[in-house]
Structures are given as C-alpha cells and as structure tokens.
C-alpha cells in the first residue's frame, strides 16, 4: 500500500476514533462514547438526589423529549423594583432552592442576560404546578429551636401511640448511637446533657429508632434512607396530636453530611417566629478581619430592630433556625447576646461562598422578587415521542432515497459516496457531542438537509470526473482533475451556507440555534466525507485494479 493511501487511512481512522471516542479518548470529554453524567433522580424515598449514569452525550431538545420551558422577568408593572439585577439574583436563588419540587431529572435554571431567568424542566407535563412553584414568593423566618426539649420529652408517648396504631419499628434500632454522636462533632459544653438524651432515643420505638439527637437542642438527624418513613410518621394524625403546642417540626433544606453518611435534619422549632423577612432590610457577606472567618451581616428595619432586640434579649444562648419557605437553611446559629437592628451570623471556618449563599437567602426572604412569565412552551412527552418517531422516519427515508439515487446513477462511484455518507453520520453525531449541542426537531431537519448538501459535493466531483474521462484522460488523471476542478465550487457552496447558519445561530432561539449548529456541523462533516474520504476510496479502488480501463461512474 502506498504511503499516500496509508496516511489517508490513518487520518480517517483517527477522525472516526475521535468522533466515537472510546476510552481513553472519552476522558477528554469528547466523542459519542457513553459518558458519566450527573442527573437528579427521584429515589425510593421520594427525594431528589444526584445520581451518576452512563449515557451517550447528545441532549434532546424539549421539543423531542417533552417538557416545559419558561422565561421569567422581574415584574415591574406594579411599581419599579429598586435593584432589578439583585432581585433577579434572589429569584434565581429561590427557584434553585425549590428545584426538587419540580421533580424532574435535569432541571435547568439559568440567568440569561441582565433581566431574565430561563427555567427548563424536561419531562414535566404540568405547567400549572411549575408556574405556582416558581411564582410563589419566598418566606423567611427566624425561629428559636425547642430549647426546653419539649418535643424530645414526648417521643416515648409518640412511640407508644404509633405502636398502638399498629406501626412497627423497623426493628434495627440504630446501634452505636454514641459513636455517631461523637462523629457529629457536638458542642462540648452541652455534651453531658445531650448524651443522656440520646440514650433515651436509643429505644427501639417506631419513631425514635429513626432519630439521632443532633448537636443542639431541637435538632434531630434522620438517615437519608429513612427520610420518607420519618416524614410520613410525623404527619400521622396520632403523632400530630402529641406534638407539644407551640412546636413545629421542620426539615432541613438539604442533606447534611456527617461521618461519611447523609442525614436530613429534623428541627423542632417554636411555632411562632421571632421575626420574619418583612423586617429584614439587607444582608451582606464578608470576611471578618478580626478572626478571618466568613460572616453574614444583616440589617433590620427600625421596627424590626425593636422586635428583634426584645426577642433576642429573651433568647440569649438559644439557637435560632433560619427558615426559608418552610425549610431550615444550614445549621441554626446560637444567639450570643441581645441584638438590635444590625446582626452578624458567624459561620466558623466555612468559606466566603457559604456566607454569600446565606446572605442571598436572607435577602431573598427580605425582598421577594415578583416574577412574571414572559414566555412559556410546553410539549407533552407523547408529542415529543411522536416527533422523534416521525423525524427519524423522515431522516431514514430521506437518506435511503438519496443513497438509492446515488447508487443507481453513479453505480460503483455512487456506492463509494454512499459509504462516505456513513462516515458523515458518525462525524456529525461526534460533532454534536463535542459541542454539547441539543438535538431538536429543526436539528433533525438540518440533518436531513445536510445529507442533500453532502451528496452535492459528490455529484460535482463525479460529474467533473465524467467530463475528464470523456476527454480521454487516464483514470488517475481524470480523478485528480475532477477533484481539483470541483473543489472551488464545493468550497463556495459550503461557505455560503455556513455564513447564513452563523447568523441564524447568533439571532435564533433554542430550536433555531439547534438547526444552525447542526447545519454547520453537517456541512463540515460532509466536506470531510465527500471530499477526503471519497477520494481515498477512489485511490484504493484504482490501486487494487491497476488494469481497470473504465471507471464505473
């Protein structure tokens, strides 16, 4: 095999490898090989959590898999909002904390430009619910935890009531409570007190077997896998009746990691907040220069300052849960002294990022951002499925017809072009994976269209070769001249289409962008397959049949 052909084959093999991308190429994050991706899935316990799955990295647009697309803006129709950009940031925060409520695997919450939030919820078919979750305004409260342990005191009664109601404990009472407790890194000053309490929790009751005493009064930890069970138990009427008056049970916003295990916090807090978000004026994060630790500073309104100063005066050394939308945010801090209009939450050795998150949470509760939906698109999952089926059928039929025409008209040369089309498909899909492009319905149309463009190059080349052959050139000479003369026309046609596609990409929305990027990638892939690969095939063909006098073209 001449070096020329060998090099060409090596390049083709390399391109195919990059497009398909088996390991170790897939480690670079390119290629079609199934990749590990993190998606959120609903576990058996009804909670959303991150799972890693292997799959082919080509995303389907909402029009193909069904789902909801929402664009939101800060509503200024009922009076100007002082700081629209900050309002947007807070709204983003609130929507992100509610993301689990959507119950979809891959939600996208994204800020677009200065004044817009785009939410995409693949697979969800209930726009009314999505709207209500998003537009509900955030509610922030500070609540004192159950410092007198009134809830803990009634746990034995609750257990008894549950047994009477026929609820059995899961059997395996958590052994090694103290071991877990040690790992919790509790506040040492309260150790004696709570260890005793934890022992009482060690009973194998239906509820108590699920709870670990946390490091502060009113905090309990429930292993993530027991979350659903614990949640249903505390909402049984028999249990709700026994929960002390003035106490409410609230879950933590997210899982808490302790000793390589994941827990949900269950907080017994006062039913009445000591202050709500309406009295908060502002909150900022900073690094406290004295102790070099991250803190969140907050400022209350004047009226709020009076209320807060009275409340904190009564609750020095108590813990204060920060509750946003009924979920406790972070671990409750302790109130060190009476606080007036300005307060500071110290976060110990947490990062500035954590402090900024907390400050944003406070601001989100203080200044709810009214959002208005300016665009909404919902595609039902069955329609999406239908679109894929029809689009695929059109793509297959279109491709087969194009292949038939080429094969019949150009015979062997046509079959070479058809074989090159196979490479074209691999390159195009590889390119889509590389750029993380989303395959939409218009994208499928572009795919079909670019098959037509791909054979155009082969038609130009084959016609030129025929002309050269008619002029009695040798096979090899006709081949070279054919490719050479067809080249300017091919480059021209590809360039003019790419130019248009680039403008479409710049100005289009989701589906049109999908069309544009598929078209550009299709043209590049078709250039490779029609020009480089077909020519290689021709060269091999001539090489293997040196005696051939007539080309089947």
């Amino acid at each position, binding site marked *: 095999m001449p070096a020329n052909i060998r090099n060409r084959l090596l390049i083709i093999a390399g391109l195919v490898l990059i497009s398909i991308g088996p390991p170790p190429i897939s480690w670079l994050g390119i290629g079609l090989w199934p990749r590990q991706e993190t998606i959120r899935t609903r576990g058996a316990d009804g909670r959303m959590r991150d799972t890693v799955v292997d799959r082919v990295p080509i995303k389907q647009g909402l029009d193909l898999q069904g789902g909801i697309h929402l664009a939101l803006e800060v509503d200024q129709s009922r009076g100007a909002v002082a700081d629209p950009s900050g309002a947007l940031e807070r709204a983003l925060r609130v929507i992100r904390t509610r993301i689990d409520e959507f119950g979809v695997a891959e939600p996208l919450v994204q800020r677009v430009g200065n004044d817009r939030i785009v939410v995409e919820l693949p697979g969800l078919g209930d726009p009314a619910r999505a*709207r209500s979750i998003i537009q509900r305004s955030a509610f922030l409260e500070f609540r004192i935890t159950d410092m007198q342990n009134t809830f803990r005191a009634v746990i034995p009664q609750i257990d008894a009531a549950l047994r009477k109601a026929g609820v059995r404990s899961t059997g395996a009472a958590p052994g090694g409570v103290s071991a877990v407790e040690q790992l919790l890194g509790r506040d040492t000053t309260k150790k004696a007190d709570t260890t005793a309490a934890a022992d009482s929790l060690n009973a194998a009751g239906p509820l108590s077997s699920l709870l670990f005493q946390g490091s502060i009064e009113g905090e309990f930890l429930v292993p993530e896998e027991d979350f659903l069970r614990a949640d249903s138990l505390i909402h049984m009427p028999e249990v709700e009746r026994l929960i002390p008056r003035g106490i409410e049970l609230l879950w933590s916003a997210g899982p808490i990691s302790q000793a390589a295990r994941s827990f949900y916090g269950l907080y017994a807090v006062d039913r009445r907040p000591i202050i709500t978000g309406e009295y908060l004026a502002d909150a900022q994060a900073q690094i406290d220069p004295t102790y070099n630790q991250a803190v969140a500073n907050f400022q209350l309104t004047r009226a709020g300052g009076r209320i807060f100063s009275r409340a904190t005066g009564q609750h020095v050394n108590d813990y204060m849960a920060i509750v946003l939308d009924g979920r406790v945010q972070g671990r409750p801090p302790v109130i060190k002294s009476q606080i007036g209009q300005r307060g500071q939450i110290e976060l110990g050795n947490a990062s500035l990022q954590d402090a900024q998150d907390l400050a944003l949470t406070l601001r989100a509760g203080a200044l709810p951002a009214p959002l208005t939906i300016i665009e*909404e698109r*919902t*595609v039902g999952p069955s329609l999406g499925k239908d679109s894929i089926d029809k689009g695929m059928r059109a793509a297959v039929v279109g491709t087969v017809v*194009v292949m038939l025409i080429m094969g019949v008209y150009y015979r062997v040369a046509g079959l070479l072009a058809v074989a090159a089309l196979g490479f074209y498909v691999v390159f195009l899909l590889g390119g889509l994976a590389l750029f993380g492009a989303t395959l939409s319905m218009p994208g499928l*149309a572009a795919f*079909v*269209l670019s098959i037509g463009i791909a054979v155009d190059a082969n038609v130009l080349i084959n016609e030129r070769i025929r002309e050269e052959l008619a002029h009695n050139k040798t096979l090899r000479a006709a081949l070279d001249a054919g490719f050479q003369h067809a080249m300017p026309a091919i480059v021209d046609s590809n360039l003019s*289409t790419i130019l248009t596609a680039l*403008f479409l990409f710049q100005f289009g929305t989701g589906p049109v962008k999908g069309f544009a990027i598929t078209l550009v990638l299709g043209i590049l892939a078709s250039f490779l397959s029609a020009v480089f690969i077909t020519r290689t095939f021709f060269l091999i063909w001539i090489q293997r049949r040196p005696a051939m006098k007539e080309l089947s073209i």
Partner: protein
Amino acid sequence: MIRFFANANYDFMGARRWAYAATAAVAIPGLVLLLFRGLNQSIEFTGGTLIEVTSQSPQVNEGSIRSALDAAGLRGAEVQTYGAPNEFVIRTRLSPTAERSEGATQQTAVAVDSALTHAFGANQARVGRYEAVGPKVGGELRQKALLAILLSFGATLVYLWFRFEWRFGLAAVAATGHDIVLTVSFISLMHLEVSLVVVAAILTIVGYSLNDTIIIFDRVRENLRRYKRQYLYDVLNLSVNQTLPRSILTHGTTAAATIALLVLAGEVIRPFAWVMSFGIITGTFSSVYIASPLLMIIEHRWPGEDARGARGSAPPPHGAVVPAATPPA
C-alpha cells in the same frame, strides 16, 4: 452509464421571457394577497397563545371547541384541525390594541384549558403542546428575525463582492432577491405560518440558491476564458447546459430529502418543509432563468473589459453556429 441531459443544448436564454412570466404568475397574486391578508405570523412574533389538543372523544370537534371557548368568553380564538382530524390547534394572538400586559397570555392559556375541561370533562381533550409568548418576547423575536435576515443578506453581498466582479455579483444578488420575493409570495399564497424556523428555512434557501448560482457563474467564467469569440448569450446557454446534469441530480436528491420531511416528519416541521421544498425549486429556477439573463442584461448595459458586450450580447435572430458542448481541454 446513466446520464441525464448529457450534452444537452437547450435554449434556456431564449425561454427567459416565459420564465419572467412564471415568476410574475406566482409573485403578483402572492404579493397582492400579502398586502390584503398579511403574513400568517406565528405567536412567536405576535405574542399570544397556542394550544394543541388531541381528543379521542367524537364530541370534540372544531365547532364544539369554538362554542366551548365562546361560552367561556374567549372570543376571537382560532381553532383549526392540525394533521389528524382529532388534533386541534387553538390560537389566540395578541392584538396590537390589546392591553400589553405580560401576564395576559398566561391567563388566556389557563382560561382555554379550563374552558375545555369544563365543556368536555377532565382528560377528554389532552394538551399536547402549549405555548404562551408575552408581547415583549414577541417583539424581540420579530426584531431578531429581521436582523438575521438583513445581516445574512449583507454578509452574502460581501462574500459575492470578494468572489466575483461586480457584474456577476449584482446578477447573483438580484437572483437571490427574486428567491426571497417568490418564497414570501409562496408563503402568502399557502398561508403558511411564519415562525422562526420558517425564517431559518428562508435563509437556508438563500444560501442554497446562491450556491447554485455560483456554480453556474463559475462555469460561465471558465467558458468566457475558453470561448473568447462567442456571444455571451451562447456562453450562458452552454454553461447552464453543461451544469444541467449536476443541477438535476443535486436538486433531485435534496428535494427527495425535504419531501421526505414534508410527508413524514409531522405537522410541527411541515411549514419548514414546505418552504424548503419550494425554495429548492425556485432556487434552481432562478439560477437558470433569472441570474443568467440578468447577467446578460447587465453586461449589455455596462460592458465588461473583455469587450464581449461590444460584440452584442444577443445572437443573430436565427441559426447561430454554436460549438458543441465539448468538455474543457
């Protein structure tokens, strides 16, 4: 060996007046209709709501949906079947005089949904697709679509300016303009819904037609160098005839692909597929019958340096001796 139209020697230039007539036959009614009826803009551009409903129940039809909407006080909604007889599309557009509040489209959508549930019972009319676009987004998308069309046209001009001398460029641009006018006329005649995807189709057509024109003009340039003593009229005819097999085959395959989309790919993409299919025809037509005659007219008016214009661009009335379509030496 199968060869279509090999060594063809059709007098394309001579048929140019018929071609002008054909253009006028599509363009005039299309544009007149456009003037009176306007474009059927999708709610992406006007703002409004679109709800696609599928129903298995025989009592759900266009009339009963309309009366259900009327009963709920939602007048002015358009109801159409969409693809299958049990699929319907309900459109409400924001009228320019309507209260331009962003929440209005949302409320309409909810109202339509509840009116349907009220009239036919829950789950009798299943919502397959649902879009609500506020006036602000509508305005933005309209602006973006216009900008995309203008800029891509501008870029095409610049490209042609580099690629050809101005006479060729002008002819190609005019032919492209012709394609846009004809495609818009077609859209107007068919009352196709103009969405962003259809705008994308129009722009793709522009690129496609331009590419076709460029391929013919490349041949013209090549032949002008080769047959220095020929009339431009004959050189143009020769070039079109030489590229004819390529044109037939390419447009045949691309048309096969877009017709597959038109027939098989469903309602959502159908307006796109219509425009693409028509555009391939008009793009081919304009490269042959519009771009080339225009080049002749332009050369005649402003003769080029190779003095072909001085010899006269048209051949003698009858019986010109033309070299056979021999391939290049």
